[in-house]
């Protein structure tokens, strides 16, 4: 980079490099940068969705948002959902990865089965779970009554706190395989000598896990937690399809609020303001993740 004189070949290569990245840059500008900038711009207007006409309102949308209670309750729901489902994902995920790392019968089949919920469409996952949660004929309510836990069928999705717990649980079911695969890949690279050394020093299985496995997993866990926190925070499909944010707005997170404002209440400007604020909150996590990845790269 400090070299001022470039050879003709280097200059030619530079040009070729720019040409090869040009399609990417064009598409990025058209479908990501331009919409991103206009989202911020739109948030300064009051737009009625069916006519798409609007007036300049400046920062009024933001003032209304910060003083209204719906934003704060949705943000709170969003935090509960993210922390709840992420915790379950990490606990289940690490536990399952440790189990699948052992010598099992039909180990690769077990790994495939675990992976399936992650790749199946959210629509499919939600349909299946809504059938399992069904009031009268769902197998979960059958189990609840059969085991004597409750006399009456439970309302899994229509009342609180059941609805939030169900959503958190289904989210954990859907996304914990990601943690399993990532942790499993890391487990396979831990040198066996470390365990042997610990064993010679008289460490039992639990202290081997705490003193050998966990420190080795630390880095990968930090990355997984950041990545999943970002993805869970912006989750729309799963919550929207399971409860639609209900009962009333008890499970409504920020992405659902944006959708509702824009396409149900027809206030596009307001919706953009919500989206921009949501992105600003996420930016903290995103920058943390990007900085960390940048460090790992170099």
């Amino acid at each position, binding site marked *: 980079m400090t070299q001022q004189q470039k050879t003709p070949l280097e200059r030619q290569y530079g040009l070729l490099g720019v040409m090869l990245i040009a399609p*990417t840059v064009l598409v990025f500008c058209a479908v990501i940068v331009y919409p*991103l900038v206009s*989202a911020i711009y739109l948030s300064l207007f009051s737009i009625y969705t069916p006519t798409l006409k609007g007036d300049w309102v400046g920062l009024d949308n933001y003032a209304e948002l910060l003083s209204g209670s719906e934003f704060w309750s949705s943000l709170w729901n969003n935090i509960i959902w993210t922390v709840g489902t992420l915790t379950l994902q990490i606990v289940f995920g690490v536990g399952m990865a440790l189990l699948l790392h052992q010598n099992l019968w039909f180990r690769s089949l077990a790994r495939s089965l675990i992976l399936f919920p992650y790749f199946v469409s959210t629509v499919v996952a939600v*349909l299946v779970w809504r059938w399992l949660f069904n009031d009268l*004929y769902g197998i979960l309510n059958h189990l609840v009554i059969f085991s004597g836990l409750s006399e009456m069928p439970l309302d899994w999705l229509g009342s609180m706190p059941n609805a939030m717990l169900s959503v958190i649980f289904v989210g954990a079911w859907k996304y914990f395989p990601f943690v399993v695969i990532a942790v499993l890949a890391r487990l396979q690279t831990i040198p066996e000598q470390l365990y042997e050394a610990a064993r010679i020093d008289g460490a039992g299985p639990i202290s081997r896990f705490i003193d050998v496995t966990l420190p080795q997993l630390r880095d990968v866990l930090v990355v*997984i937690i950041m*990545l999943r926190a970002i993805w869970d925070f912006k989750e729309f499909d799963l919550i929207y399809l399971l409860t639609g944010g209900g009962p009333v707005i008890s499970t409504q997170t920020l992405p659902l609020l*944006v*959708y509702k404002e824009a396409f149900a209440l027809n206030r596009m400007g307001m919706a*953009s303001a919500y989206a921009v604020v949501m992105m600003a909150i996420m930016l903290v996590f995103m920058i943390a993740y990007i900085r960390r990845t940048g460090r790992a790269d170099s």
Partner: protein
Amino acid sequence: MRNLRTLFLNLFTWSLVLAVAFPLFWMVVTSLKPAFELFRRPPTMLPETVTFEHYWRLLTETPFLLYFRNSVILAASTTAVVIAIATVGAYSLVRFSYRGRESLAFLVLFTYLLPSVVLIIPLYLFMVKLGLSNTLFSLVIAYTTFALPYALWLLRSFMASIPEDLESAALVDGASRMGAFVDVILPQLLPGIISTALFTFILSWNEYLYALVLVNSDAARPLTTGVMTMLISAFNIEWSLLMAASVMMSLPLIVVFAFLQSYLTRGFGAGGVKG
């Protein structure tokens, strides 16, 4: 003692695995039960009579095949467009030096994490203005917003793992830069490309939000929103039919799992989760 431990470990792990897989098992079982058996209490674990009537009705009486066709076109064209752009883009990001390269890589990662709901309102307005709403083409455009950063990021790490010497050797032998790319890099990158293509295809196949907002007619509706419309519009929810639709919708995935699973696990390793 040791055998007992192995036995216990296996039973414990396998019961957890089966519990995780149970909803998917239940989906298949429900789709095969005749209507009268569906509402029996207690429910039968395996169908007493196996019927394919729900699948038959799904294919003949509902617009399922149309949605399926739309989804195939949509996911395949998104994958083709994205892989073509991302392969040369990743090559440029990894093997060339020019101003702004680092910030571009940063932008790719940033957009990879960006929430769709931020982009969806401007994209909706954009499509309405261009008269593209309610077309599959508008969804292909919208899907590139998440698929392109994703594919670039994956391909970038696959590309970085190909030794640079291979390319240099070809250049010394007189190959041009693009010649070396086609003859040396592409064959080496092929497993990475396949794995990225699979992930892109699955992502596009499963996408819901853009399809919900941008398309409002059966002619361009993909499976995700199409099947949900079947749920909402039905007078009484027909669970067997919906479960049959869910099974059919997961078919491409089952094919990938059966034959190409190693590519999926490879993609995970490259997806930026290595510590």
